[in-house]
Structures are given as C-alpha cells and as structure tokens.
C-alpha cells in the first residue's frame, strides 16, 4: 500500500533502561483504519513501544512520524492532543475515584466561569458511553475499587475509545477479562475496524484473537520487529511455530552458555 496511507510510522526507535535494552531498532507502521496486532514474548518491548507512542516515555533514538510528519511526543497530554490515546496494561485507573471521574480523568468537564467539575454532565456521558459499548456497570458513582477486573478493564477501554483519539493503543485489553467480557471488547474492536475511522495497535497473547480482530500482525522479538504480515497470509500454526522456534533457540543458548546475554 502507499506510504501516504500510514497514520503512524516508527523508524529506528531504540530505548534502554539503564543496563536493560528494551527496544533495539524498531520499525513499524500503522495504516489508516487498520487494526495492527502486536505479538511478542514477555519483556520483548511491546509495552515500552506503546509508552513511547503514547508520549509517556521518550525514545533514546529514532523517529516517530504522524501522518507523514515527524513529531517529538513531549508528554501524554501532547500525544493526546495529536489524537493518540492508550489503554495501558495496568489500566491507569484511580481506585478511589468513582467510575465517571475515571472515565474523564485528565479530560474533566468543568463549568464556567467557576471551574467546578460538571459532575452531572460527566455522569450522563459516562452512562451513554458505557451503554453504547454494551458494558454492564450498574453504578457509575462508586469507586472503581469495588468493580471486578473485567469491569475495570472495560472502563479503561471505554475511556480511550470514547475520546477524540484516532490512533488507539490497546496494551493487552483482554488480560483481566472473562470470556464474556473479552468477547465484548473484541466486538468493540470489530466495530471500530468496520467503521475504519480510527487506527488501532493491539497487543495480545491469544493468536486466535489476533487473527480474528486484526488486519495485520507484527511480532516483536528481542527489541526488533521480526515478522510483519497480513493476518490473511498467516495462521495460528505459523505464529506458533515462530514462537516455539524462539524458545528452542533460547534453550539451546542457555544450555551452551554462549547465547546472547541480556543484562
């Protein structure tokens, strides 16, 4: 496809945390309206990549291009103002705050001229958004600490999906969910994919989910993107084989003792 259709391009991005190299040289692109599945072993650098794109962390080197223009993502606020929003693996919910305040965290609506929170308006919009997604949360004025893992995850996803963002990052959106709630999130992703208004990068572990929900799949191994193919051209078996091979290599390296040593 044409280069111009890419909403997000990542070129030669690297990131170290002290002695640990999280990303070596990552090149990735995201097309408009596409759902890109990102697979990789634990510690492969998936979450770090998400946090760089969401403005939470800065890369040591490399470029991020947004709709063809190079940008330096200065902060989460800055990335959000450019239309990028992220559902983090830890959800970034505040246990003590009620559902509706979490939904509007950092996007609070306030009255004028005295900037008191527009609580009623935020509650109404929260209710509408949750109903539209189809998530069952009986009370939106209780602290999120009282909700189940799946409900919390749904709120975090709903918060990002209902924002103005047109590039959405989902870091393991199904992690804490039961089958029923997970299906709801996958439904939501399918709907967004059909609308093709937003572009999505989704980290997942379940190959079946990735093949079902995504247009294309990227595999990140040892800080590089090592595999990039449309989901139509690959299969669960092939993805499995790649990962099994990775384990085999890692075991051989561990036995022989001269493999690549991660600090």
């Amino acid at each position: 496809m044409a280069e111009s259709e890419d909403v997000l391009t990542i070129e030669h991005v690297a990131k170290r945390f002290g002695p640990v190299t999280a990303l070596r040289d990552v090149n990735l692109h995201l097309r408009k309206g596409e759902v890109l599945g990102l697979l990789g072993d634990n510690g492969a650098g998936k979450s770090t990549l998400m946090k760089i794109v969401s403005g939470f962390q800065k890369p040591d080197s490399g470029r991020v291009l947004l709709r063809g223009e190079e940008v330096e993502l200065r902060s989460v606020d800055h990335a959000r103002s450019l239309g990028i929003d992220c559902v983090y693996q830890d959800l970034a919910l505040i246990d003590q705050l009620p559902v509706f305040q979490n939904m509007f965290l950092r996007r609070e609506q306030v009255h004028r001229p005295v900037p008191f929170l527009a609580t009623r308006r935020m509650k109404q919009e929260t209710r509408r958004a949750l109903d539209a997604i189809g998530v069952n949360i009986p009370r939106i004025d209780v602290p999120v600490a009282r909700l189940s893992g799946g409900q919390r995850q749904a709120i975090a996803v709903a918060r990002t999906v209902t924002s103005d963002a047109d590039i959405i990052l989902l870091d393991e959106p199904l992690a804490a969910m039961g089958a029923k709630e997970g299906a709801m999130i996958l439904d939501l992703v399918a709907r967004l994919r059909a609308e093709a208004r937003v572009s999505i990068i989704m980290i997942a572990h379940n190959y079946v989910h990735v093949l079902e929900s995504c247009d294309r799949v990227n595999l990140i191994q040892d800080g590089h993107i090592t595999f990039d193919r449309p989901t139509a051209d690959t299969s669960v078996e092939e993805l499995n084989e790649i990962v099994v091979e990775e384990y085999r290599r890692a075991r051989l390296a561990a036995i022989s003792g001269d493999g690549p040593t991660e600090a």
Partner: protein
Amino acid sequence: MSAARTPGTAPARIAAGEGGSTRARLTAMDVARRFLTLREGSIVVVTVLAILYFSVRTDHFFSHANFVTLLPYFAPFAVLAAGEAMLMVTGEIDLSIGSVYLFSPFMFYEFNKAGLPLGIDLVLALLCCAAVGVINGVFTEVFGISSFITTLAMLLGLGGLTLIISNAQPVAMPGATVTTTTENVTHVVNGHTITLPEQVNHVSTFAKIFGAGTYSELIWALVIVLILHLVLTRTRWGVYSIAAGGNKLGAREAGINVRLTVIRNFVLCSTLAGIVGVLEAVRSSSISPDTSGASETMFRAVSAAVIGGTLLAGGEGTAIGALFGALFLGVLRDGLTLQGINADYLDFILGIAILIAMLINVYVGRVRKGSGRG
C-alpha cells in the same frame, strides 16, 4: 459529600421484605448508615458525643464564655489540619508545618523592622512560607527523598533558623500592640445611669482581622476549610490530588502532572501554616521562638487530620473531617480541663481517646468500603 461515597444499600434491601413496620425504621437506619459512612461522618458523631458528654458532666462547658475559651484550641489547628489533609491526600506528609508556623511571624517581624507596611509584611512572610513548601516539594518529588525525611529535616532546620533570626528572644508582634486609654463608660445599674472613667483596650483593625478579634480565627478557619473542601471535592485540583495519592503511576499515565500536583499541595500546606502562625502571633500579640511547642503543634494538626478521616497512605481525605478532628481534640482538652482533671493525666487520656476515635474510624471505614475490603 458526593454521591460517590454513599454505601451500598444491599442490607436494607434484603431486610425490606420482612414487613412494612420494619421498613420505616430501616429507612431511618439507612439514612444513619449513609451518614456514618461519609468519610467525615464518624468524627462528626464522635465530636458531638464528646460535646454532649462534657455538657452533661460539667456546668460551664456549654456556655458562650467556654466556647470563646475553646476557640484558640480549635480554630488554628483546623486550618493546619485541613492543609495537612490536602497534602496527605497526595500520599505525602508535611512535618515542617510546626516550624513554618513559628517561622512565619518572625519573618513578618523582620520585614516590619525593615520599615515595610503591615500588609506587605504579611504577603512577604507568606511568600517565604510558600518557598518552604516549594523546597519540601522539590526534595520529595524531584529528588525522590521521602516527604517524612524531607519535612523532618525542614522541621528541625527551620526551627533552628527561627532561633538564629530571633536570637532566641521573644518579641512583640508588630501591628498587634494593645493600647489602653481611659474613657468614660456609661453603665446602667439598678435603673441608674452611672458614668465612670475606665481603662479600655484597643487593637488595630489589622489585628482584629488577623487573629485578635474574638471570632477572627474561627471565621478564617471556617472560610479556609470550606474553600479546601470545595477544591478537594469539586475541582480538577482535587481529582488530581486524589489520583496522585491513589495511583501515582496511573495518574502519570493518564497525563496528570503528578509532580506539579504534589508540589502545589506542599506549597498550600506551608502557606496555610504561615497564615496560622501570623494569626496566632497577632492573637497573643507576642511571638516566642518555642521550637518544642512547634513540634507539638505539628503533631496535633497531623492527629486532627488523621482522626478526621484522612489516610496517611493517600488517595482519601477530607478537609471538613480535619476541622472536626481539630474540634474533637479541642473539646477533649477543654472539657477535661473543666472537669478538673489533673494536667498530668491530660495527655494520657488524650492518647487513649485518639486511639478509640481511630478504632471507630477504621470500623466505619470498613462498612464504607463494603465487606472484604479495608
């Protein structure tokens, strides 16, 4: 308080099927339950019980004269505690408020000695206190030293600095000088009008506003606590403070500037301690560099905040609770004194009372959070 903190009503619903007569009673109980499970509900109840107890047990407790006596034991601590609560919500603590409270009137005195008018003295003194807050905040948030250590060092250091500035000598508070004039005052005695020359004390308008007026400190306390309550419950500032204390990483991921939020509350806490320092200095018209008194002031304020329902761990807090916490401590001290309790027993009983109040708080907190939590 916001509806967000109302408890679950499940027990009432289960029991409601038992019959119409119990339903009304359960509704009343439900209301009581809801009130008790407000964050500041338990301390309000405990305070009212203490007031009732002392009103019954002593003749003079429930009187206007005693209310006026009680004020200095309550109002200054209400402001200190409410400021502390705002900071504790973010998960930090400021132990230095005792020294800031001491330092602020001495700075006021120094600026006045330099020839500046009272209003400017006040503003500059408070700016110094705000600067202390900035230092506390930067050490905690930027250099990553725990606020307990940072502000403990500040408590000692600033107390020492106050001793150096003041040469450890008490001074008269500028603007709070009491002048005495002899005036003819008319009395009506047994239907006769008698005019006698009497000694009448005067203080300046500045002094009346800033602490010397009988209700000055009370009004300051009520206004400040009300504002802090609104800030905490109705503004972004409040939401971000709770977020910073509740889930620091999550708050940062959501794009909240946690560093700024926490430093801002350090500044708020320090500045309020500075205001209280000036109010108290004006009220007593003198300032003495009593550093051990400073620590006690700080401990009482922190106690009032915690008794009021603010968590040391952060994420939850209440300014109104802090006010009632301060009132409870004041009532206890005043009531025990009126009962003629030996002064040696006072702190002992206070200590036990604080523990009991906290037990009630913890229990009610469990009810509030629902079963299985807290």
